[in-house]
């Protein structure tokens, strides 16, 4: 039942540019085929989509989805176990950490990027870095709020001769900086190759006691009164935000014989101010690529006019 509802929502979304469909109507038509006439869901969906295509006087291709799967932008995936078709570019290939994984990396389309995984058991042709493919029958996957796509045995891979401008899926969030969390300011990172873990009391959770390397970062919280956004400023962004360089921070900590003075100084200079930041979302965090302090005087007259209309 809910499954049909999901399909109905997909269909409504697929036609959103062309027809103003009602989810309940679509679901009723699917339900009629599936439960009354015992048509398999996929076939029922195909049939319903076809009838709407006729109604809208469209070709199937106009919907972007070839096989009746949802046409969803990679950065717009927000559902687990959804079957989708995409045309995407292989943006990055990573080293597989498990023997069962054939390939892992990033796929990108106009909307942005998402992680993909292909398993050994699926026995698929290899994707080449930088190439663009038409991929049909991918399944979406969710882990701790992060979405990815899985290639599987039924996935068809067709290399296509087109260039894709991979979208920038940066999030932009704004609000008052209401907290700078522990682990901010002057920190030490593990120096081992490919390990950049932040040390806790001089220990890396992977490599034990190590001679750490100093770095700057801020783990902050932007709050607009309706929602909170956790953001991470890397060294460059932290230096731009606070006006304090890594060397100055080290000197300050040296003088005080205490690294916590750095975060304290940063708190005094930034907490309670309004900022807008943008950058990719990574788990709970927005990694700050760009930020601006919202320091322009507000237009009180405009605010008043808007407020009176609420």
């Amino acid at each position: 039942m809910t499954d049909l509802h999901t399909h109905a929502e997909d269909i409504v979304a697929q036609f959103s540019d062309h027809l103003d469909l009602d989810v309940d109507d679509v679901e009723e038509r699917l339900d009629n085929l599936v439960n009354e006439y015992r048509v398999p869901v996929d076939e029922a969906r195909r049939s319903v989509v076809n009838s709407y295509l006729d109604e809208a006087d469209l070709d199937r291709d106009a919907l972007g989805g070839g096989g009746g799967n949802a046409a969803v932008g990679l950065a717009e995936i927000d559902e687990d176990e959804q079957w989708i078709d995409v045309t995407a570019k292989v943006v990055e290939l990573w080293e597989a950490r498990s023997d069962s994984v054939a390939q892992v990396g990033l796929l990108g389309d106009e909307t942005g990027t998402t992680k993909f995984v292909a398993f050994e058991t699926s026995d698929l042709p290899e994707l080449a870095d930088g190439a663009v493919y038409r991929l049909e029958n991918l399944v979406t996957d969710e882990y701790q709020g992060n979405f990815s796509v899985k290639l599987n045995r039924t996935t068809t891979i067709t290399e296509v001769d087109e260039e894709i401008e991979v979208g920038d899926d940066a999030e932009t969030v704004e609000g008052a900086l209401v907290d700078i969390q522990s682990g901010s300011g002057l920190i030490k990172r593990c120096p081992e190759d490919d390990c950049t873990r932040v040390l806790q009391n001089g220990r890396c959770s992977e490599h034990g006691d190590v001679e750490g390397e100093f770095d700057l970062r801020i783990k902050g919280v932007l709050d607009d009164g309706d929602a909170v956004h956790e953001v991470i400023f890397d060294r460059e962004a932290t230096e731009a935000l606070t006006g304090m360089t890594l060397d100055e921070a080290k000197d300050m900590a040296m003088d005080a014989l205490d690294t916590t003075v750095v975060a304290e100084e940063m708190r005094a200079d930034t907490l309670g101010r309004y900022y807008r930041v943008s950058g990719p979302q990574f788990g709970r965090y927005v990694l700050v690529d760009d930020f601006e302090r919202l320091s322009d005087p507000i237009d009180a007259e405009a605010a008043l006019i808007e407020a009176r209309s609420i």
Partner: protein
Amino acid sequence: MSQAPTREVARRVFAREFNDASHTFKESEDERAPVYLLLPTGERANRVFLVGTLTEKEDVGEGDEYWRGRIVDPTGTFFVYAGQYQPDAASALRELEPPAYVAVVGKPRTYETDDGSVNVSVRPESITAVDATTRDRWVAETATRTLERVGAFDDEGDEYARMAREEYDLAVDEYREVALAALEGLDESDELNGDGADAPAEH
């Protein structure tokens, strides 16, 4: 989705409405469950963010330092109290010289007086000196959030609006008037000052 406990949003509320609040509640039996202050316009607040003018500060502690600050917004006065368990906020209050624009992130605290009335104050997590434009931005933002809450107050589906109607006997339209007056105040100071931002800059 993520199972990590979600951080409580810092609500925007003017002093007038904040000080009218008195009802607190929890949403689970858990001893460590967050305590919410019910705002009269129908929202739960476990944390608030406010910006105003620190007009007075006083160490009211007996023995240990215990700082009280009065922070004024266009509608009234917030009271903030910081002692040894809020060392950052306490040292900020110790060092600030009123009058000064300050931004405060903190938790609402209620206290019942001998005559049965309830006083509301803020236990600060942080207090920082800010400039006039930050303060103006807060006033505008808080007016907007207040008007949005007043607008949703009669919404039957709004759990906290319903709770506010049950717990309080207050005319929420007043908060609408107060919010609009606060914005009008900003607009007037714009006209007086040209750009509305001529107060001393930070630092």
